[in-house]
């Protein structure tokens, strides 16, 4: 694995601040009543900062989508990252779904299936720190920190310290 590019935590914070501004525009004046869900584990990190920037009324929730993945028949159960925590009702709410990297779109498909098992939201907006090409499902983000056109051999990873690394296998 060779490191090609690294965006430091301050750079990532900048991207998230821009995402927050874009979300405010799309949600209108009562944006603070929207509910936020981060997908474990990278999406939760992004959601924390995004939530702070937007000062939403309700605390952000966490989604563990491993029971909804479509690769169970190929690779079995994923290592566990803890239960989903949704401290609010989904029913009739506007949900901001947050992930670190949007790639094939399969994670988002799984996340939406899980959300609907909790109730019927009025609307779901997708916010992702990185939008990279290579979609396998008809899913697009509403808010993007940065778009990247990368070959398959590249990997994008958000670290716990909120730095973003692009490396080559």
């Amino acid at each position, binding site marked *: 694995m060779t490191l090609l590019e690294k965006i430091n935590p301050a750079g990532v914070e900048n991207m998230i601040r821009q995402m927050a501004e874009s979300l405010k525009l799309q949600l209108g004046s009562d944006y603070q009543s929207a509910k936020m869900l981060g997908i474990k584990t990278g999406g939760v990190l992004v959601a924390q900062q995004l939530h702070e920037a937007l000062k939403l009324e309700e605390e952000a929730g966490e989604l*563990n989508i*491993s*029971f*909804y993945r479509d690769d*169970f*028949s*190929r*690779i*079995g*159960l994923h*290592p*566990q*990252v*803890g*239960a*989903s*925590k949704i401290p609010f009702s*989904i029913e009739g709410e506007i949900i901001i779904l947050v992930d670190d990297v949007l790639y094939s779109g399969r994670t988002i498909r799984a996340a939406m*299936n899980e959300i*609907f*098992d*909790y*109730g019927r939201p009025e609307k779901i907006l997708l916010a992702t720190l990185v939008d990279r090409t290579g979609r396998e499902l008809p899913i697009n983000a509403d808010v993007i920190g940065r778009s990247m056109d990368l070959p398959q051999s590249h990997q994008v990873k958000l670290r716990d310290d909120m730095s973003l690394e692009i490396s080559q296998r």
Partner: protein
Amino acid sequence: MTDMKAQQAIAKPDIMRSTQDDIQLTEAGELKHFLTIEGLKKERLIEILDTAESFAGVNDKAAKKVPLLRGKTVANLFFENSTRTRTTFELAAKRLSADVLNINVNVSAVTKGETLLDTLRNLQAMQCDMFVVRHSSSGAAHFIASHVEPHISVINAGDGQHSHPTQAMLDMFAIRRNKGDFSQLKVVIVGDILHSRVARSQIHALNILGTGNITAVGPKTLLPQQMRELGVHVRHDLDGALVGADVVIGLRLQKERMRSALLSTEDEYYRSFGLTERRMRLAKPDAIVMHPGPTNRGVEIEASVADGPQSIILEQVTGGIAVRMAIMSIAMGNIEKSLAANSAVQS
């Protein structure tokens, strides 16, 4: 019971272990069947407990289901009566979106091995993917696992006096949730340890998880000194054993033991080994009381203890669903994974 008979009863699991050769693991060392706790690595048990923790949240959802085993068929094969275990297995399978077949095999109609294999072949022909087996003979689940096709996972829901691994894991789940670290705990198990598959599995699990002190308590006829070989302190006075206990587990007293003259009367048993409020004051003030159910109130446990603030008996039942979901999905997932890897090699 003579000492020799007792020795045979204890030796049984060891004989089985030697023929077992980790049939419950894949080549990669992961669970594909769940037959016994004996011989499993600590990481396997932790994997089950962590996964169960994730599944515990499923019960809070509007739709209490996840789609993991959608399209799979789970056959509950019960050769021995059970309500609680069968029901929680059924709920666990359904919450994983599997289809469930409940088959109460009439024991009198089943003669010996041949008929059992016949039943199995029929169920395999119906394209079942998982067998949950309870049987009054020790080793039955193991026998079935060694005869099924490679795409089928077998879960032991209790075999004779040998093991009841899912019950032990749900007990470990309840202990970890209430007490955290096992290494500092004093766990007291009281009752008919000799004949109890629950106790045997609990002791193995507690040992693997590194429990500091496991004390088994019971009358001499139901707890011979040889039980020490399982890695427990053996005592015959409950009062003394309870001092400083963090976890107290009562076992169900089976009435047939009284008929076979291993015990005198229920009253006498209750006086010596009943978990009463007075006795529980000897344990730590924050000690928890557990029981695999169903409880005989006034025989092995006082009603006010079973229903009291220290009792987590109902929490055990609730946790049992999450733990069984975890075991079923881990085992089924590992079978899927190994089948996918094999077909990739062939193509």
